[in-house]
Every structure is written in structure tokens, then in C-alpha cells.
């Protein structure tokens, strides 16, 4: 092999502490190296031309560039050598900037280390072989997981672009948390007025297939070609037939079912359509409360249903969908304030969560939009809001800021004043975080126009005294303890990752942080992509977010999908495992350890079995290679011989 070595000065970045001339001179002595030089900026246009010129003039078959990190410029140089007619994998980089010149000042030591790294790169290159990508068709259907506002936005954007969309929602209805809100900050728009039409659109678009009351069972495949199994949970109602007339609800004798939509305030019927604008507007039976399903004689709904949609024998059903991309928009859950023993640990009915208060405020809520307190239905006069409950609190394992609470408290305090002009609202806060457009003005308005009393300090304890709750807190600005007797206490419960986020991430093979929020590819530059190609993020599943940001991310993820779907095919990565059948002893260990199910049995004539890699599924981790006893399976571009060649240079 004829190898050329190009040592980059990177201005003074490398040449400042590495003798690049000497490195090049030494490289000329390495086996197969026929050309070596140093250059000011190898990645520059003239630098790349210099490489291309040398390939042509010296008849080079492989190129080593000693420069910065391959994570920086490997793609650049691969393109450059490809333009000069070499296979892009006949190229290696030695990282002599991040790993050498920038981390030590001893010129002599740096130079000798750089020489070693170049020697290793050359040794590896001698075992490189041309690799070729193949093209795979892209299935231009999108799966959206989660039907909250972020998922709806993404689905509608893609559907508008003419793509087929499959939406899976865990709940019986779409709309997510936003569907439960009364008004939205800072405009005091009615939440259901702005979300409603979008929900209807989802139901009406012919190219959107909606699976509500469904969950992801399994996901296999890869970008462009995912296969998704969806579990349609038992609803006990044939949704094909159900017209959402609600007759069953009216007659259902089981009246004390948990009202999840109203956050446990009030009660629902065992057969239920959670709210009048629900999409899909279909009834579902809560098996825990249904008399018939608990062995009692009933079946009233089945008798009353005009279209005979009730089916007590119904079972979960698995459906399979094939898609080319996935947008994850599974949203968030609310922190459960029961861990705050000092706030009653959930024992006091009049100490409620922010979302419960939202339901109280809502005209479709348990009290028809009249503010009453849960314990006795009385109208509260003194209302205390406490921020940062389950946010910025390391002692409960939630050290992060939930980002939305300061704003929703201000909104709720304003709405409270609108509903009950005679009431007084108090907000205990640590800091006010309102960095959005017109956000801070909104919080100021709560204080200046609506007379909400903001108290800078945390609350130490809430306890009952007679009919009222005593809120014992601090005003740190004055340096005094303060006490407020309240009729109702609203805790600004923080945002946490959605229940089961980790399990879904495992199915999707995407990363998540210690709190269960999904990790984006790059916090600034790739905010809606994940490290698994073809899987994108939108909304609060990635971290706490308000509605505008969630919608923006929904659209951003949709545009990523549309640019993927603009192509008919995608190129596969050829750096995958490959089986040398002659050496394969069919022990099956590679199949056992592959994290991606990318290896399968292949039967040769005479019934002889061998392992076979599905190149398009293989992600290139190399676990199989490390496991295979006769090393019959080799990860291309990181073969045993290539790694051994590098190690051997150090053993000598």
C-alpha cells in the first residue's frame, strides 16, 4: 500500500508545542509510507487540494492526516480523499491537537507522542479495506408517540405535508395536559378553544391514524424501516360502533369511579367519556369500578347502548405498523407532593396541586368553573400558592427548575381574582422565573393590577387549625417568620418525566437522564434529534417546557422528518459487523449478545447453520466481535487486526 501522511500545523495550535516537521520526517520511515509533509491548515480548501494533488501525483492508496480530533474533521477529509478517487475508508486520522498539543507544553514529549499516534494510524491503515454503503428505501410514514400538544403539532405538520401519520396515545383521549388547563399564560387564552380545533383536525385528517388508549409494545428496525407493535388496551367498548352519545354514562350505576381527568377531584362513572370535547369521543369502561366486570349483576350500559358497542369480553389487541421515522412526544407528569410531610403529605384535602386547581378553575371541571375548596365545597377567601414544590429541591431528588410554575401560579392568581374579586391571594416564591415574551410583564400585572401578595420565602409547614390551613413560612426580605391562615393552599407542583419514560426509552434505544427526561443529540445544535437515527423528540419528554416551546419543538421535529422523507432512500453505514462464514462455528453467541437483534441464523446447504449480520440493523457496536470465540465476526473498520496493529506499535 502506498500511504501519504499529512501533518497539520493548525496554525500554532499544533505547531506551537509539536515539531510537525519532525513528525512528518519520522513518518517517512514507517512501512508503506511513501509521502509525508506538514501543512499550515490541512482542513482548508488549499490543504485539501494538497492531499488530492499528492494522491494523484504519488499514486497514494491510503491517507493519514495528523491533525485535530476525528470527531471534528474526519468527514471533511473523507470527502476530500473520495473526490481524489480513494475509498473514503482508506483514510485515518491521528488526533495530535486535542490529545497532544493542547494538553501538554513539553515540546519534546508532545512530538514523540505525535509520532507514536501517526505510527499507530499508519499501522491501522495498512489493514483498512474499501467499504461501501448500500441504499435502503425509506418508508415515508411517521409514528408520533404521545398525543399532547407537541405530538399533535408534529402530526398535523407532517400530515399537511402529505405524509401518513400514525399517532399513539396512552390515554383514552388526545390533548394531553393542555386539555386539562383552563386558560393559558400570558394571554389568558382559553386552552380548549385553541387546542380544540387541532384535536378535531387530528381526528378528521384522512392520513392520520389515531390509536388512543394504546401503548407501544415493541419497536424493531432502524431509520427508514421501523416495525412497531402497538397494544390497543381493552376499552370494553367497540369504538368502531360507539358514537359517543353518552347514554351509557348517564345510566351507569357505578358513580364513584376515579376521575383521572379531574385529577381525582369529584368522581366519574365506571363507563366514561372524560370531557365533552374529547377526541376520540368514545366511551371506555374502568374495569376497577365496573360492576359487571367485578362479578356483580349489571350490564346496564350494554342494555342501553343504541349501537350495541359494549363488549365485556374484549381483550387487549396488538397491531403492527411499519413506519420510517418516530417522533417521541410523551410529555411529563406532575410531581406527587405526598413526599412533603411538612405540607401534610397529601392528607389535607384543601392542599392541592396546581393541576387540580386548574380543573377547579375550568368550566368543564368538577365544580363547573366555580372556585370551591374540595373539603367542604365552600368558596375560599384566602388562597395561598406555594412555588417550587418538587422543583429546585435536592432533598426530594428534583434539583432542577420546572420552568412553568412561576407563570402558571401568576395566571391562577389572576384568574382567582377574576372569579372571586373579594378573595386574597398570596404567593410564596424563591425567585420568579419569567423569561418569555410578555412573561415578566404578566407576573408584574398579577402584583400591580390584581394585588396578588408575593412573599419571598419558602414555606416550612402547613397544618390545620380549625377549618383553615395555617401556612407557616418566611419573608426572607424582612427576615421574619410569617403565617397566613388560608382556606385553600395550591402547591405549584413541579414537572417530572412521564411515568414509564425509561421503559419506552429502552424500547426506542434512546438515552435518558437521571430524571427520566430524554436526551437530545446535542443540547444546542441538535435539540430535537436523538442518538438513534430516525427517532426525534418534541415537547416536555425532553425536559420541562411550556406550551409555546412544546409546539415549536413539535414543528421542529416534523421538519426533521420531512427532510428525511424528502429522500426515497438512505445510505447505510458500512462500518458494521461481517461474518466470515468459513470461520463461524455456529455457536450463536453473537446472536445472543447483539443489543439490536441484528444477527440471525442463515442455513447453508446440508442444513449447516451460520450467523448472518443484517447490515441495515447493525449499529456497529462490536459486542459480537468481542464475544465471538474464533473471531469469525469482525466489525468493519475496527477489526481485530486493525486494533492489534495499533496496539502492536506500542508493544514494540
Amino acid at each position, binding site marked *: 500500500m502506498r500511504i501519504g501522511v499529512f501533518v497539520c500545523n493548525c496554525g500554532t495550535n499544533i505547531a506551537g508545542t509539536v515539531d510537525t516537521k519532525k513528525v512528518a520526517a519520522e513518518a517517512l520511515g514507517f512501512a508503506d509510507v511513501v509521502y509525508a509533509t506538514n501543512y499550515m491548515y490541512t482542513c482548508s480548501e488549499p490543504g485539501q487540494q494538497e492531499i488530492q494533488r499528492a494522491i494523484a501525483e504519488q499514486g497514494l492508496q491510503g491517507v493519514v492526516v495528523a491533525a485535530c480530533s476525528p470527531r471534528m474533521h474526519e468527514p471533511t477529509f473523507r470527502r476530500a480523499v473520495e473526490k481524489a478517487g480513494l475509498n473514503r475508508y482508506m483514510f485515518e486520522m491521528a488526533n495530535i491537537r486535542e490529545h497532544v498539543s493542547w494538553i501538554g507544553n513539553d515540546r519534546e514529549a508532545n512530538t514523540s507522542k505525535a509520532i507514536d499516534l501517526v505510527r499507530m494510524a499508519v499501522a491501522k491503515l495498512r489493514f483498512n479495506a474499501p467499504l461501501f454503503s448500500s441504499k435502503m428505501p425509506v418508508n415515508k410514514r411517521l409514528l408520533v408517540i404521545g398525543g399532547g400538544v407537541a405530538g399533535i403539532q408534529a402530526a398535523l405538520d407532517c400530515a399537511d405535508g402529505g405524509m401518513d401519520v400514525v399517532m399513539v396515545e396512552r390515554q383514552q383521549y388526545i390533548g394531553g395536559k393542555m386539555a386539562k388547563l383552563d386558560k393559558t399564560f400570558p394571554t389568558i387564552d382559553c386552552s380548549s378553544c385553541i387546542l380544540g380545533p387541532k384535536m378535531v383536525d387530528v381526528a378528521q385528517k384522512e392520513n392520520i391514524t389515531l390509536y388512543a388508549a394504546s401503548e407501544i409494545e415493541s419497536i424493531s428496525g432502524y431509520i427508514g424501516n421501523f416495525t412497531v407493535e402497538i397494544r390497543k388496551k381493552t376499552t370494553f367498548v367497540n369504538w368502531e360502533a360507539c358514537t359517543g352519545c353518552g347514554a351509557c354514562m348517564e345510566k351507569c350505576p357505578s358513580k364513584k369511579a376515579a376521575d383521572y381527568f379531574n385529577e381525582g377531584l369529584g368522581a366519574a362513572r365506571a363507563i366514561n367519556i372524560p370531557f365533552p370535547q374529547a377526541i376520540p369521543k368514545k366511551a371506555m369502561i374502568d374495569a376497577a369500578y365496573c360492576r359487571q366486570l367485578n362479578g356483580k349483576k349489571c350490564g346496564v350500559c350494554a342494555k342501553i347502548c343504541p349501537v350495541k358497542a359494549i363488549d365485556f369480553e374484549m381483550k387487549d389487541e396488538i397491531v403492527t405498523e411499519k413506519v420510517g421515522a418516530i417522533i417521541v412526544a410523551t410529555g411529563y407528569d406532575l410531581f406527587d407532593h405526598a413526599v412533603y410531610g411538612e405540607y401534610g403529605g397529601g392528607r389535607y384535602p384543601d392542599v392541592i396541586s396546581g393541576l387540580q386547581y386548574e380543573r377547579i378553575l375550568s368550566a368543564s371541571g368538577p365544580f363547573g368553573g366555580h372556585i370551591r375548596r374540595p373539603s367542604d365545597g365552600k368558596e375560599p377567601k384566602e388562597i395561598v400558592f406555594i412555588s*417550587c414544590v418538587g422543583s429546585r429541591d*435536592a*432533598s426530594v431528588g428534583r434539583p432542577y427548575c420546572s420552568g412553568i410554575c412561576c407563570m402558571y401560579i401568576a395566571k391562577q392568581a389572576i384568574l382567582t381574582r377574576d372569579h372571586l374579586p373579594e378573595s386574597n391571594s398570596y404567593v410564596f416564591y424563591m425567585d420568579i422565573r419569567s423569561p418569555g415574551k410578555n412573561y415578566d410583564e404578566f407576573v408584574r400585572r398579577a402584583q400591580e393590577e390584581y394585588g396578588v401578595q408575593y412573599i419571598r*420565602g419558602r414555606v*416550612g409547614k402547613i397544618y390545620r387549625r380549625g377549618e383553615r390551613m395555617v401556612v407557616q*413560612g*418566611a419573608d426572607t426580605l424582612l*427576615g*421574619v*417568620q410569617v403565617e397566613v391562615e388560608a382556606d385553600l393552599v395550591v402547591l405549584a407542583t413541579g414537572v417530572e418525566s412521564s411515568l414509564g419514560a425509561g421503559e419506552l426509552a429502552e424500547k426506542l434505544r434512546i438515552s435518558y437522564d437521571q430524571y427520566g427526561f430524554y436526551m437530545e443529540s446535542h443540547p444546542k445544535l441538535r435539540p430535537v434529534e436523538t442518538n438513534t437515527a430516525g427517532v426525534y423528540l418534541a415537547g416536555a419528554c425532553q425536559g420541562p417546557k411550556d406550551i409555546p416551546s412544546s409546539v415549536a419543538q413539535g414543528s421542529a421535529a416534523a421538519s426533521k422528518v420531512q427532510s428525511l422523507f424528502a429522500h426515497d432512500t438512505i445510505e447505510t453505514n458500512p462500518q458494521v459487523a461481517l461474518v466470515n462464514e468459513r470461520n463461524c462455528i455456529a455457536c450463536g453467541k453473537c446472536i445472543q449478545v447483539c443489543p439490536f437483534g441484528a444477527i440471525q441464523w442463515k442455513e447453508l446447504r446440508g442444513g449447516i447453520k451460520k450467523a448472518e449480520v443484517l447490515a441495515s440493523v447493525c449499529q456497529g457496536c462490536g459486542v459480537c466481535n468481542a464475544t465471538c470465540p474464533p473471531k469469525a465476526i469482525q466489525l468493519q473498520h475496527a477489526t481485530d487486526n486493525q486494533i492489534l496493529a495499533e496496539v502492536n506499535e506500542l508493544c514494540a
Partner: protein
Amino acid sequence: MERTNTLSIQQSRDSEFIREVEEESGQSVSKCYQCGNCMASCVYTFAYDYPVTQIMRLIQLGQRDSVLKSDAIWLCANCQACTTRCPNNIDVAQVMETLRIMSRKEHTVSQPDIQAFYDEFLRSVKTFGRVFETGLLPVYNFRAKKPFTDLDLAPRLLKKGKLTFFPAMVKKRQKIAEIFEVVKRDRFSKDGKTRPEAHSAKTDS
């Protein structure tokens, strides 16, 4: 302890003080973000010159004198409410304890009568091995110049047979006295500073 209207941050900052408090208490004082929960939870806030939150703030600013001469650190009853509720897992009560020990060493105790009571208590322990409740009070009253403290209780307690007139004594009092001597010797062996290995019981929370 004087409150001034302008605090010269650089000049008044004693970074050695911050380091000492953190090292002796094993707590990271910079974690405090002054939410006020300790102040809100402390039942003695009414009596303090500086509420606990401000004590923490003063430590962050390196205000050695204000902290070590404060009433607050001596009025703290170590009831642990602050520690239990601190959102940043700071053992605030431990910090207060550390400050008390420091103020004793630096002779800046703001509450001489409380110190007198503690001293008398320890004297009793050192002498008898146990605390002699009936004997403790009169001596304290004498030293703290509050001769009538709890005098009202005496007749009733006498009637209930609750007052004893002879101290119960530990047999191996020698051993107890030895513990006192060793601790005292180590404590003042290095220029009045604590022994080098004497970090707080908690090194990491």
C-alpha cells in the same frame, strides 16, 4: 454585631472563616440559596438577632464576627427542624453547632448565662459522672445572678419526692475525668485550634 448600612464585601470577607465552618461542619455552605425554609421552620426565630437564613448568608459572605457573636447561634435548641426541611440537604443544625463550638473557642459567646449553665452541667458530669439536677440549679442561679429561677417549682417537687439531695455517682469517675482531660488537652494543644484530625462527624452528607 453592629448593623452597618454599607458592607464592604471584599474587605469584610474572611474566607478562612468560610473554610473553617465548612470543614468543621462537613457541610457545603455555598449550597444554600436563601429560600428561608430554615427560618420558616425554626420556632426560635422570634428570639434570634439574625434568623438562620441570614446566619447562612453571613457565613457565605465570610462575616466571622457577626456570626460568632450572634445571639442566634446560642439560642438554637438543636431541634433539627431546619436540617429536616432544607431543600439542599444542608445539615443546618450541624452548622449551628459548629458555630457554637467556634464561638466558645474564640470567646465570643453572646449568652454568658447559657454558657454558665452548660459549664455547670459539664462540671457536674465531670465531678459525679452524672448530672445532679437538684444541685445544678442553685449553682447556676448563683453564677447567672438569677437567684429566683424555678424557685416556684421547689415546694411541689419536694412534695412529689422528686428532688434528691445526694448526687448519684459513677464508680469509675476517674475515667470520666480522664475523658475531659484528654479532650481539653487535644483541643487546646495547637494554638487554640482544633486538633487536625478533628473534623465533624459528618464529612460528606
